[in-house]
């Protein structure tokens, strides 16, 4: 069937900010969809609030709305654009839910917009658990016994019928939020109540628990001629009971006989047909009883998903791209497999390697969390590794995690396990945590049998035995020497995935010696190709992975080649922004005639789409793996400064002549505190006073000099890992001991003699400013933007909202900042990006730090200003001058217009109810959104909606402020009362507000005092917003509970007075002006405020 001609324009909804459960996989799928639909000649209208995405680049859609993903806003966009169709299946759960809201509100009917890909009936059948189970039973598929409940009474009745243990699953959620297992009546009461709260429609499924069963997923596609194919089977190493997003997963499935696999395949197709997914990709999850082989269907997602992104990268079959084509009428047999080019997409990929996905968690960022894995997803990112066998891919995956591990143990970090006795280790391994995989290996190494470990973990014995093979090889390696290993021994070790660094650790020698001996033994890596067909057909796919085999398939070309090192797994502090920069570099350098080679290990990203670069190496970003690729490809330059800290760490280790742009020495100069201080002194640019310390004693010496409060932070980290504001001696002691603990385990941000801790005077109440700029070899410099943070200095820049242009900085301060930036860039001899952070206090500009690399704000700045900074910087790094790029047309002037752009961070506190949801110097946000409009208030307000904070237009605001915040808080409170909101406050705050003439409706009791306290008020629904600023680490108890309650109830929580003030102004503008949406393309042409839009 040909392409549909009865539709001309298609609205695509993105997935919004990166949150746990919904990460850059939807940028990957959405970007593919945009590309394909435009190739097919459709007008593509895109709505997505996330500025760090590739898909929101103005080149990827005809009309790009970086606007809040909310019903009213989407309705406005539809009213303006009148799309013929809405494709809701490529933007994750967010897009699917919004599409359903648009259907339910009658918007799609009113405007005659057709849902393509999946219709409302299909979405409802798949998403509503009761309907889904009924539908599956109707077609003869087995499901776990269960019942639906809408309140606690119903829930209790279900449990009486089916018995404990049960798993609770709320309807309409993503990433398993609000799900949990209950084995006792007490647990049941708690988990069920939590689940009811988490569901948009207050509905939970109470289901017989099948924890411990084996878990499988099939990625399937269907076209409108009813052709169905399985793209990939995935087996979870972790059994049922652990969210698949938190499980180590393996493709293809390893422990199913064909009989069972085909039964599952038939069931998946039957499921798709019954649910009514007319076209596109779906994910169907199964559980299998390991004792009997009984299969039950768990759930299906009628859309592309995290798993389908993984399946696409695992097989080379681009599910999202094909799904987009199917949605506009093509059938699978009409679409060519663009890897083989000669065969159609109507086939099932077969793979001749093993893919392992390992989640990346960030529990260390959320003090108070247990770190125990369950049915609610908690990981913030993932890596994928390709090996010829499972042990090889597992070890590659583990060393890709960027958490200091070198593989499956055999590294310094395993020392922590060695300290545990057998019983403690076995007890620990029985509980699913991020450490479990390492504990399992340690148990096997201590002689626990595969069956014992299987009994404790329910991990399939086949996987355990494969891990045992690694363990046994390790023993053999330890028992010999590099010279005693022999060629076949070397090959066996490398084939089991041992890194040079692991071998170096086992032998107590240097990794470079390992490399020398290995090469002397004649053992070198080879590169294989991902081709969807197990080499059955010739494929020129430029998608490779390393293996220790006999044949190398990669033939170096003679074009000038640039290698771009990606950013590895998403984690807090390093996310999609850096992938955006790497992808842009690839595009720009490709356009400029270079052959681009991407190296990365994150399956969610656009960078690991084999379409993005000329060649893709899906490999860990370690020194060994990268060096091997350099040897194979012989690039003329390696880009290390666009992928965040991961590649930057390698800068000093790789040959200096290969590093594109700013030299490693300059990078070091900016990081080395002493050299940096000298440089600032020479330039006469003021800095907050401070010093460095490798231990507590030295830290005390620095503090004696500069005085409290001080900011304590490790060097060479992103995202403010372990950064603390310290007010007294005891806090200092605590902070230093934390950091030295990390150092001994090789954890990112750990303290060591080479990487001392920075101790600086903390400037209270200063305004923080970020600058992104690019400098070329001629010394020419372009300022990307000067960004003013909404939150004061002390809140990590990644967690702070920031505004372009700076609303409160006088012109002369901005000029000073720009001049400082130019001189710092000059002094560091920057060739490419530089990001400088300043604190401005009383119009005095202090420089905090400079980093000659791409920053997190680059995509935001590019979208706010219309300047493709990452493209420009990558060209500059390869020697182009800014003048040349101006002539070429790549470097354009910042757009002139009256628009204001606000970037807001999105916090994952709803996933970590135990953690204090307060902003601080350690970054904890997972993603960001952009609000853009013609006043600062409107832009801020939109950014809040996008970040999921629905600022209330009426009702009551609760204020509880630290003394130092009371002055600024007054202004915010006045703003709210002017809008007609009423104020309640704790006694001290209330007294301050009343003293200044503000009405306070009620004084709220402190926790434990007589009278109604804040938590009770929050829970009773009497409060619509909480403004609560922390009082430092000492007296946090009250505030922490209040903030936790607000977070749990989903009530807007502002933890700084600056944010409260911005919220008040935003609400004012929001009420004053009608809702307006505009495309990024229009903003980039320049929009000036008409007379109808004046700042109130």
């Amino acid at each position, binding site marked *: 069937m040909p392409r549909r001609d009865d539709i001309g324009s298609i609205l695509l909804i993105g997935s919004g900010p990166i949150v746990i459960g919904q990460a850059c996989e939807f940028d990957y799928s959405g970007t593919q969809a945009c590309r394909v639909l435009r190739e097919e000649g459709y007008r593509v209208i895109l709505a997505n609030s996330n500025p760090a995405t590739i898909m929101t680049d103005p080149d990827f859609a005809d009309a790009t709305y970086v606007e809040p993903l909310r019903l009213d806003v989407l309705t406005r966009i539809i009213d303006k654009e009148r799309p013929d169709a809405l494709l809701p299946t490529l933007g994750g759960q967010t897009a699917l839910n919004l599409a359903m809201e648009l259907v339910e509100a009658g918007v799609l009917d009113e405007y005659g917009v057709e849902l393509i890909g999946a219709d409302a009936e299909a979405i409802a059948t798949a998403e509503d658990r009761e309907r889904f189970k009924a539908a599956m039973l109707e077609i003869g598929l087995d499901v776990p016994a269960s019942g639906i409940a809408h309140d606690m009474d119903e829930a209790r009745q279900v449990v009486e019928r089916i018995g404990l243990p049960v798993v609770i699953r709320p309807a309409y959620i993503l990433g398993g939020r609000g799900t949990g297992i209950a084995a006792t009546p007490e647990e049941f009461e708690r988990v069920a109540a939590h689940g009811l709260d988490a569901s948009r429609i207050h509905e939970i499924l109470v289901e017989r628990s099948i924890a411990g069963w084996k878990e499988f997923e099939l990625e399937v596609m269907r076209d409108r*001629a*009813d*052709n169905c*194919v399985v793209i990939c*089977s995935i087996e979870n190493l972790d059994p049922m009971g652990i969210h698949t997003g938190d499980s180590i997963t393996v493709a*293809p*499935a*390893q*422990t*199913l*006989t*064909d*009989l069972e*696999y*085909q039964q599952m*395949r*038939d069931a998946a197709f039957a499921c798709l047909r019954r649910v009514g997914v007319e076209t596109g990709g779906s994910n169907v999850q199964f559980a299998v009883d*390991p*004792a*009997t*082989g009984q299969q039950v269907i768990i759930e299906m997602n009628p859309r592309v998903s995290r798993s389908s992104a993984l399946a696409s990268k695992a097989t080379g079959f681009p599910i999202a791209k094909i799904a987009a084509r199917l949605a506009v009428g093509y*059938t*699978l*047999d009409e679409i060519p497999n663009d890897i083989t080019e*000669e*065969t*159609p997409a*109507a*086939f*099932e*990929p*077969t*793979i*001749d*390697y*093993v893919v392992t996905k390992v989640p990346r968690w960030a529990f260390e960022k959320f003090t108070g969390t247990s770190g125990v894995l369950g049915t609610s997803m908690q990981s913030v990112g993932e890596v994928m590794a390709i090996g*010829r*066998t*499972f042990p090889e891919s597992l070890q590659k995956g583990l060393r890709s995690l960027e958490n200091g591990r070198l593989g499956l143990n055999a590294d310094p970090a395993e020392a922590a396990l060695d300290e545990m006795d057998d019983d403690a280790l076995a007890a620990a391994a029985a509980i699913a945590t991020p450490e479990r995989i390492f504990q399992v290996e340690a148990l096997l190494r201590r002689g626990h049998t*595969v069956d014992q470990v299987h009994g404790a973990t329910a991990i*399939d*014995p*086949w996987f355990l*035995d494969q891990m045992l*093979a690694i363990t*046994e090889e390790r*023993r*053999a390696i330890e028992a010999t020497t590099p010279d005693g290993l022999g060629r*076949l021994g070397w090959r066996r070790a490398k084939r089991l995935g041992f890194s040079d660094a692991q071998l170096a650790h086992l032998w107590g020698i240097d990794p470079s010696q390992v490399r020398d001996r290995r090469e002397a033994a004649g053992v070198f890596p080879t590169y*294989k190709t991902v081709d969807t*067909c*197990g*080499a*059955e*057909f*010739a494929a020129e796919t430029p998608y490779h992975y390393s293996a220790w*085999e*006999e*044949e190398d*398939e990669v033939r170096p070309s003679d074009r000038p080649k640039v290698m771009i090192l990606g950013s590895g797994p998403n984690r807090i502090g390093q996310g999609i922004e850096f992938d955006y920069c790497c992808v842009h570099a690839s595009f720009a350098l490709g356009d400029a005639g270079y052959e681009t080679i991407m190296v990365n290990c994150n399956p969610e990203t656009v960078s690991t789409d084999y379409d993005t670069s000329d060649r893709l190496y899906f490999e860990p970003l370690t020194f060994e793996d990268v060096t091997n690729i350099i040897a194979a490809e012989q690039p003329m330059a390696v880009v290390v400064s666009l992928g965040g800290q991961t590649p930057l760490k390698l800068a000093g280790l790789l040959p200096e002549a290969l590093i594109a742009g700013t030299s490693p020495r300059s990078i070091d100069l900016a990081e080395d505190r002493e050299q940096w201080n000298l440089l600032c002194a020479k330039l006469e640019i003021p800095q907050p006073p401070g010093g460095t310390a490798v231990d507590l004693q030295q830290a005390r010496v620095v503090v004696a000099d500069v005085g409290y409060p001080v900011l304590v932070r490790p060097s060479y980290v992103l995202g403010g890992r372990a950064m603390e504001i310290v007010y007294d001696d005891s806090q200092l002691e605590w902070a230093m001991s934390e950091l030295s603990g990390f150092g001994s385990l090789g954890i990112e941000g750990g303290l060591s003699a080479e990487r001392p801790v920075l101790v600086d005077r903390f400037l209270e109440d200063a305004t923080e400013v970020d600058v992104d700029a690019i400098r070329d070899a001629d010394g020419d410099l372009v300022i990307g933007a000067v960004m003013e943070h909404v939150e004061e200095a002390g809140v990590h820049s990644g967690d702070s909202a920031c505004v372009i242009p700076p609303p409160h900085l006088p012109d002369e301060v901005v000029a000073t900042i720009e001049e400082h930036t130019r001189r710092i860039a000059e002094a560091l001899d920057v060739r490419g990006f530089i990001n400088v952070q300043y604190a401005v206090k009383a119009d005095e500009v202090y420089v905090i730090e400079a980093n000659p690399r791409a920053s997190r704000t680059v995509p935001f700045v590019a979208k706010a200003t219309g300047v493709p900074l990452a493209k420009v910087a990558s060209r500059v790094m390869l020697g182009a001058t800014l003048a040349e790029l101006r002539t070429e047309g790549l470097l354009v002037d910042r757009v002139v217009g009256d628009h204001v752009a606000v970037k807001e961070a999105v916090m994952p506190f709803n996933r970590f109810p135990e953690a204090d949801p307060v902003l601080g110097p350690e970054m904890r946000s997972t993603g960001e959104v952009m609000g853009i409009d013609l006043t600062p208030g409107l832009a801020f307000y939109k950014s809040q909606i996008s970040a999921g904070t629905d600022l209330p237009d009426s009702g009551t605001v609760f204020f509880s402020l630290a003394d130092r915040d009371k002055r600024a808080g007054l202004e915010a409170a006045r703003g709210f009362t002017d809008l007609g909101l009423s104020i309640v406050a704790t006694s001290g705050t209330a007294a301050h507000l009343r003293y200044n003439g503000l009405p306070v409706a009620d004084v709220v009791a402190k926790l434990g005092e007589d009278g109604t306290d804040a938590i009770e008020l929050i829970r009773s629904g009497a409060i619509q917003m909480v403004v609560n600023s922390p009082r430092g680490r000492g007296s946090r108890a009250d505030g922490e509970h209040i903030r936790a309650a607000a977070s749990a109830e989903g009530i807007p929580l502002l933890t700084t007075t600056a944010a409260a003030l911005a919220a008040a102004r935003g609400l004012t503008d929001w009420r004053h002006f009608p809702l307006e949406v505009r495309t990024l393309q229009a903003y980039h042409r320049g929009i000036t405020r008409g007379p109808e839009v004046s700042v109130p």
Partner: protein
Amino acid sequence: MTDDGREIAEALLVLADGTVFEGEAIGASPPGGVQTGEVVFNTVLSGYQEVITDPSYAGQVIAFTCPHIGNYGVNPDDYESRRPFCRGVVVRDLARRRSSWRATGDLDGLLREHGIPGIGGIDTRRLTRHLRDLGAMPGAFGTADEATLRAAAAGAAGTDGIDLVATVTCDEAHTVPSTGGGRRIVAYDFGIKSTILRHLSGLGEVTVVPATMPADDVLALGPDGVFLSNGPGDPEPLTGIRDQITDLLGRVPVFGICLGHQLLAGALGAETFKLPFGHHGGNHPVRNLATGSVEITSQNHNYCVTEGSSPSADLTHVNLNDGTVEGLRCRDVPAFSVQYHPEAGPGPHDSRYLFAEFEDLMAAFKGKVHA
């Protein structure tokens, strides 16, 4: 010796063109440390037991592109015939430990029990690419020295022009009782798979007869339909069988699969040719020309019917990867056949409707005869 006490015996695989691959011996030990056969690759991700016990692999050494083989062991239900007829197995990694609730033994044990040697640790992707580019070719493997293996490989027979059916067919007729239908079916055993028999017995009682049984003897059994089974090797030398099929056509409904398809086409005068490296896998897309829909199919053949060489039959199915003939239906007589394996075992179940079509054909023919 490895830590778990297994001896690692280094072994080599040498192809007829002299290409050498390094590995280690698995399965049975061949005499003199040398085993020969035509090396073909198979791309299935699951179903190694069915593949290894499929008689169509007689004379061949099966190289699996899927790296982990043996993971779920072996069990009594997944045999496709009474024993393996292949000459060897090449894998990247043989599982050390099996895991499946159905398993009763491990793959290495099955290979040893039936005297099938194998070689593990091979860069099977390199091997596959080599065979893909240069075509399936004979090879020798084992623990013998390289010169011995090289000589053996160079001297090893391929499958061209050889009657391999004679090595796998049953010695005498036997009956498989009906599990459902009331038909009486005669199935020629050219190397028939158990899964096919399971499907046929769903239509009625099946009498499995040796490949050499004359047409008249078959008709004497009073069948409602005759089935031409899959089997190994080159259809070309099987002239006697083709003649019997010619005799049957028009007198009884005929359904052929794989070699049976080639022989039916041959009986109609069609030509066959050898594919460069064959089709061996579970993921080949085939278009049903009558419905337009795509079936994902299980395939295992090296020879193929030349398109347009059988004017009395309509093309019904086409391979979407390479356009080759996948199905034919006679215009004048009640007979049809497919090149692929609708019974699966291993493989997808998309094409099982063909057994129902056989039933329809038998029903229609019976009606006609008795009208």
